C-alpha cells in the first residue's frame, strides 16, 4: 500500500514513539489528514515492547554493523532549485553497547521456536557462546537530574482492567510474570520493585520441580514476556492517565495495577509499606513506626497547608528534612528512596514533599500501589494512540523510511517529505522523532543504561522465570554501570559454587540470561540545539529517565498547541448515539465511517484497518 500513498496530507509524523503517536492522534482527532510513518518494523520506537524472540531480533539488529548506505540519490532530483533538503538518518544511534549474556546451557537453541510463533527465530548470532562476555565499552554522559532509584516488578496476574475501571476479570495465564526493576547505581542500596502478591496461575504448576531451566525453554516461553525497552509505569494520577481517559484511548488497552513495591536494603529485598493496608500488614515496622509513617504521609498529602512544618528546612535537602522529623532510619529510607524517589544528595525538601504527595495521590485509585502498567507492555500505549489516529482517518506505514525534509528556501518552511520510494508527499506540519535527525543536527545528548534480566529464584518455584528490568542514568556502559548491582541482587555464576556459599541464608535468584544496552535520553534537549530547523518542523524526544510518562504527554500537548492553537487537545470522542452522519444524505449510516470506540466490533476505514492488522500481528507474531 505504501507505494500509492496520497501525495498530500495536513500533518506528517515520522516515528511512532509515545509523543509522536499522541500528536498523531490529536491531529487526526481534530480533523487533520495525518500520515504517520516509521522506519522500524514495529510501533513505539524506543518505547516498544517485545516478546523474547522479538527482543532477540532487536538485539541482533542493534548489534549488526550498519552497512554503508548504497542507496541511490535519485530523490535529490525531486528537490527544486528553490528548495533544499534536510536528510533524515536511517540509522538509529540511540541504542548503544548492546550486550546479551546467557548464563545457562543453550541446548539446541537454534531449533526452538517460541510457542505459538509463526516463523522461525532469527539466528542467535555470535554472542550466545560468550558466557562471561565483556564487550565493547564506550563512555556515556551522565544525567545530573533524577537519580532516584526506582523500578518495578510487577505481575499482570492481579487485576485486569478495562477502561481503567479495574474490573476484575478472568485472567489468562499467558503471562507468567513480568518484572521490571530499575536501579540507581549511584545510590547503591536501593531498588524499588513492585511485585505480585498472588501466586501465578495454576497453569504453571507443571514447572514445580526445581528443574534447571534451559535456554530453549526461555525461548519457548518467550511469548509469556512482554519486554519493555524502557522501564516506565503509569502513575495512576497524572497527565497520561488523564489523557487516556479523556480521549477514550484507554479502552484500546488493558491495564493492571502493580501489586507491590519492594526495596533492597541491607542485603534484603523488603516490601515498602506505602498504603494504609500495607502499613497495617507490615511485619517489619514497629507499632510506633507505623504511626510515625502514617502521620508523616498524611502530612505530605496536604503539606502546602502546613508551611510552618517545613519552612525552616526549605533550603535543606529532603533527606536532611526527614532526619529532622524524628523518623527512624528505616522510615527515612522508605520515604526517600521508595515513596518520594528523589535523590538523597540534591533534592530539596519541597521537591521531596511534592514527589511524596504525587505518589500518595496515586495510591488507591486503582489499587494498593500508585502504578499501572499496560497488560502487554509499555509499547501498547503508543499503539493505542496510533489506533485512535487511524480510527479518525490517519494513514499508517511501518518500514517506511523518509529520505529528507524538503524546505522552501524563501519561506524557510518545510513543504514536503520524500520517502524511500522517491515519492514526494506534501504537508503543512511535520513532527519528527529526534532519532531521525542525524547527529550533526543535534549538539548534545545523554544516555541511560538499561539491562533486562531473567532470573530464577529457587524459592520461587511456581514461576519458572521472572523478568527484571534495571535502569539508571549512565556513567559508563550499561554493563559496567549495572553489573555491581546485579551481583548484589542475583547469582550470576555457576550454580554449584554459589549454592554451597549461600548455605542456609537467603537465596538469591539466579540470572539466566541478560541483555545490557545504553539508550539515549534526549529529553531536556532544547529545540535550539537543532540548527536551523524550519518553524513547521517539530521535534519529539525519546523516552526520558523519569518513571512516569508526563514528559512525553507534556511535549505532545505543547507541540500540538503550537501547531493548532485553537483546537482542543484530544477531546473526548462523541457518544456514538449522538453522531449524525452528515454525508450526501443518501446513506445515513455509512458503514465505512463508524467511530464507535469499541475496539473489536468496529468497521474501520480502509487505511485504518491496516493498523489494526498490524497491531494484531504484533501480538500474534
Amino acid at each position, binding site marked *: 500500500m505504501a507505494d500509492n500513498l496520497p501525495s498530500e496530507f495536513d500533518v506528517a509524523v515520522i516515528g511512532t514513539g509515545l509523543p509522536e503517536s499522541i500528536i498523531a492522534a490529536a491531529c487526526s482527532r481534530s*480533523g487533520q*489528514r495525518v500520515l504517520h510513518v516509521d522506519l522500524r518494523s514495529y510501533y513505539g520506537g524506543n518505547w516498544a515492547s517485545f516478546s523474547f524472540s522479538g527482543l532477540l531480533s532487536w538485539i541482533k539488529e542493534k548489534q549488526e554493523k550498519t552497512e554503508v548506505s548504497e542507496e541511490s540519490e535519485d530523490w535529490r532530483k525531486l528537490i527544486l532549485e528553490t528548495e533544499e533538503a534536510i536528510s533524515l538518518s536511517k540509522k538509529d544511534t540511540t541504542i548503544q553497547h548492546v550486550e546479551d549474556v546467557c548464563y545457562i546451557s543453550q541446548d539446541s537453541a537454534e531449533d526452538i521456536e517460541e510457542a505459538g510463533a509463526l516463523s522461525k527465530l532469527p539466528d542467535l548470532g555470535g554472542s550466545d557462546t560468550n558466557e562471561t562476555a565483556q564487550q565493547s565499552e564506550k563512555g556515556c554522559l551522565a544525567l545530573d537530574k533524577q537519580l532516584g532509584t526506582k523500578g518495578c516488578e510487577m505481575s499482570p496476574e492481579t487485576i485486569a482492567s478495562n477502561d481503567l475501571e479495574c474490573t*476484575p476479570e478472568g485472567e489468562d495465564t499467558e503471562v507468567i510474570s513480568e518484572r521490571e526493576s530499575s536501579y540507581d547505581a549511584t545510590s547503591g542500596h536501593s531498588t524499588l520493585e513492585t511485585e505480585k502478591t498472588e501466586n501465578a496461575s495454576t497453569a504453571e504448576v507443571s514447572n514445580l520441580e526445581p528443574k534447571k531451566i534451559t535456554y530453549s525453554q526461555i525461548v519457548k516461553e518467550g511469548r509469556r514476556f512482554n519486554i519493555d525497552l524502557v522501564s516506565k509505569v503509569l502513575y495512576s494520577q497524572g497527565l497520561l492517565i488523564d489523557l487516556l481517559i479523556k480521549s477514550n484511548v484507554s479502552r484500546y488497552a488493558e491495564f493492571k495495577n502493580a501489586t507491590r513495591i519492594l526495596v533492597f536494603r541491607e542485603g534484603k529485598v523488603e516490601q515498602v509499606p506505602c498504603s*494504609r*493496608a500495607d*502499613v*497495617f*500488614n507490615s511485619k517489619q515496622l514497629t*507499632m*510506633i513506626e*507505623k*504511626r*510515625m509513617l*502514617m*502521620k508523616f504521609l498524611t502530612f505530605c498529602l496536604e503539606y502546602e497547608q502546613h508551611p510552618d512544618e517545613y519552612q525552616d528546612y526549605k533550603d535543606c535537602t529532603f533527606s536532611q528534612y526527614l532526619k529532622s522529623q524524628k523518623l527512624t532510619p528505616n522510615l527515612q529510607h522508605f520515604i526517600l528512596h521508595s515513596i518520594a524517589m528523589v535523590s538523597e544528595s540534591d533534592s530539596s525538601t519541597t521537591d521531596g514533599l511534592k514527589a511524596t504527595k504525587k505518589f500518595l495521590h496515586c495510591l488507591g485509585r486503582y489499587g494498593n500501589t500508585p502504578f499501572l502498567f499496560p497488560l502487554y507492555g509499555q509499547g501498547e500505549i503508543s499503539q493505542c494512540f496510533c489506533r485512535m489516529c487511524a480510527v479518525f*482517518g490517519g494513514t499508517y506505514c511501518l518500514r517506511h523510511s523518509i529520505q529528507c525534509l524538503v524546505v522552501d528556501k524563501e519561506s524557510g518552511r518545510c513543504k514536503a517529505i520524500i520517502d524511500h520510494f522517491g515519492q514526494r508527499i506534501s504537508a503543512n506540519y511535520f513532527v519528527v522523532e529526534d532519532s531521525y535527525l542525524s547527529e550533526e543536527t543535534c549538539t548534545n545528548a545523554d544516555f541511560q543504561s538499561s539491562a533486562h534480566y531473567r532470573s530464577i529464584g529457587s524459592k520461587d518455584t511456581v514461576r519458572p522465570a521472572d523478568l527484571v528490568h534495571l535502569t539508571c542514568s549512565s556513567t559508563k556502559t550499561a554493563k559496567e554501570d549495572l553489573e555491581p548491582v546485579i551481583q548484589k541482587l542475583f547469582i550470576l555464576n555457576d550454580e554449584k559454587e554459589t549454592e554451597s556459599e549461600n548455605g542456609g541464608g537467603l537465596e538469591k535468584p539466579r540470572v539466566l540470561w541478560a541483555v545490557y544496552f545504553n539508550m539515549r535520553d534526549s529529553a531536556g534537549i532544547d529545540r535550539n540545539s537543532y540548527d536551523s530547523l524550519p518553524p513547521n518542523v517539530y521535534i519529539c524526544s525519546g523516552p526520558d529517565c523519569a518513571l512516569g510518562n508526563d514528559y512525553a504527554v507534556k511535549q505532545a500537548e505543547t507541540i500540538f498547541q503550537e501547531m493548532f492553537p485553537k483546537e482542543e487537545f484530544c477531546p473526548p470522542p*462523541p457518544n456514538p448515539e*449522538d*453522531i*449524525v*452522519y*452528515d*454525508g*450526501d444524505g443518501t446513506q445515513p449510516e*455509512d458503514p*465505512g*465511517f463508524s*467511530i464507535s470506540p469499541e475496539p473489536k466490533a468496529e468497521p474501520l*476505514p480502509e487505511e485504518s484497518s491496516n493498523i489494526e492488522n498490524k497491531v494484531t500481528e504484533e501480538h500474534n507474531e
Partner: protein
Amino acid sequence: MHGRLKVKTTEEQAEAKRLEREKKLHQYKATTEAIFEKRRLGQLDKEGLELTSQILGANPDFATLWNFRREIFLHLEEEGSPEEMQALCQGELGFLESCLRVNPKSYGTWHHRCWVLERAPQPDWARELELCARFLESDERNFHCWDYRRFVAKRAQVPAEDELRFTDSLITRNFSNYSSWHYRSCLLPQLHPDPQHHGRLTEDVLLRELELVQNAFFTDPNDQSAWLYHRWLLGRADLEPTIHCIYVNREDACLAVAFSQPVRVTPGSHGLILLADEAPLTVEWHTPDGRNHPGVIWLCDLPASALNDHWPQHTFRVIWAPGQCQKECVLFKGRKDCWYRDSVTEEQVFRCELSVEKSTVLQAELESCKELQALEPDNKWCLLTIILLMRALDPLVYERETLRYFGALKATDPMRAAYLDDLRSKFLVENSILKMEYAEARVIDLSHRELTALGHLEHLLLVTHMNLAGNRLQHLPPALAALRCLEVLELDGNEIESLDGLPGLPRLQELSLRRNRLRRPSDLRPLTLCPCLAQLDLADNPLTNLPEAPAELANLLPAVHITLV
C-alpha cells in the same frame, strides 16, 4: 475522503433523553398496573414472574412485587415437579444476581435470595459463597452481603476457621471494616472459647487479636472500627443477673431485693421466691414506682405474721430461680431491720466496660496506648481507651490520673462533653461506693465531685446518709428509689430546678437543698411522697424571694420543718 461527522447539539440530546425517559415511565406504569391486576385476579403464573422481573430489574426495592413473586413461587411449587422447581430456582437466582448488580444494597433482593435458596431442592452453597466473595470484593463493607454470607455459611456449615480466614483476608485489604471485625467477634468465641468465661477467648488468641487490632489503630487511630473491636476484646462476659442485696425493715413491713442487672418479675410466676422461716410466702413483687417494668430493685410487703415478735428470729430467704441464686438474712428479735449484701469487690462490679483479663495484658495495653497518645495527643479514642484500661486495672489507684485524662478528652471532643461528664460521674460514684464498702460504712460522701449524673444507685440500698453537695446535678433520678434506708440527703449547691422524678423515699428525714434553683413552691410536691420527712432546708433558692412561699410550703408539707433563710 470521508464524510465529516456531525454531533447532536445539547438541545437535541436533551430532547432525545426526555423522550426516552417519558417512554420508560409509561412502560413502568403500564407494567406495574398489569401486575397489580394479575395479583387481584389471583393469576399466579409465569407471566407474573416475567412482568415483575421487568420492574424489579430496574427497581429492586419494590417490596410488594417480591411478595407477589413468592406467592407465584409457592403456587408453582404445588404444581411442579422438583426438577421444574430446581430450574425455576436456578432462573430466579440468576435474575437476583442481575438485580444485585443494579443495587447491591437492596434489602428486598438479598432477602428474596435467602428465601429462594431455602426452597430450592438442590441449593448450591459453594456458588453462593463465591457470590458473596465477589460482592465483597467490590465493596468490602456491604453489610447486606455480610449478613447474607453469615446465612450461607450457617446453611452450608462452613467451618468457622474458614470464615475466620475470610475475615482475615478482608481486614488485610482494608481494616476499616466493621462487619469483618464483628464477624470475628462471633467466630472467635466459637473457635477458642475461654472455659471460664462464657463468650470470651483463650488468652493466647486474645493476645494475638490485641496485636492485630493494635496494628490497626497505630496505623490509623481515627478509625473507629478498630477501637470498637478493641473494646470488645477487653470487654467482659455477659453475666447472669444475680441478687446482690436484700433488706428487711420491720417498721415498714417491707422486703427489698437489689439485682445486679435489671430483671422482670412477672406476677404469679415463680421467678422470685420468698421463703420466710423456710416456708414459702406468697407475696406481690413490685418496683418502687409501681410500674413493674424490668428493674434492679424489687419490693414486697410482708405480712405481720412473718415479722411477729414471738420468735427470737425470722429468716428470710430469697431465691432467684432463673439465675439459680439465693440469699438470706435473719431478723433478730428487737432489731428494726436486717440485710444481706455481697461485698462490692472489684472483680464483681463496675466492670461493665472492661473485664478482668490478666492484668499484665492490660498493663501492656495501657503502655502502648500511652505511647500512641504521646504521638497523637488529640485522639479521643486513644484517650478513652486509656481511661477504660485504667479503670479495669485499678479504679482507685488511677483515680486522679483518670480525671486528668477526662479533662484532656473533653478538650479534644467538646461535642460529647455532656456524655463525658456523665461517664466521669458514673466512675466517680463507683469509686466512692468502693471506698464506702471498704470502710463498711452506710454513709456515702459524693460531695464536690462535679457530678452531672448519678449511677449505680442500686448499690446504695443500705445507705442512710448521702452527701451530694457541691455538684452539678440538675435533677434527681427516679433510681433514687433504691435508697430504701436513706435518712439524710444533702444536695446543697447543685443546679436543681425541679424535683420531678424524685421517688418516695420511705425513711428520708432530712433534706437539704440550699443554693439550688428551685423557683416555685409547687416544685416540691414530690416530697409529699416521703412520709418521714421532718427537716427541709431551702435557703438561697429563688423561691425564697416569693412572699407567698412560706404559706404555700406550710400547706404542702405541713409536718415538715422548713428553713427558708
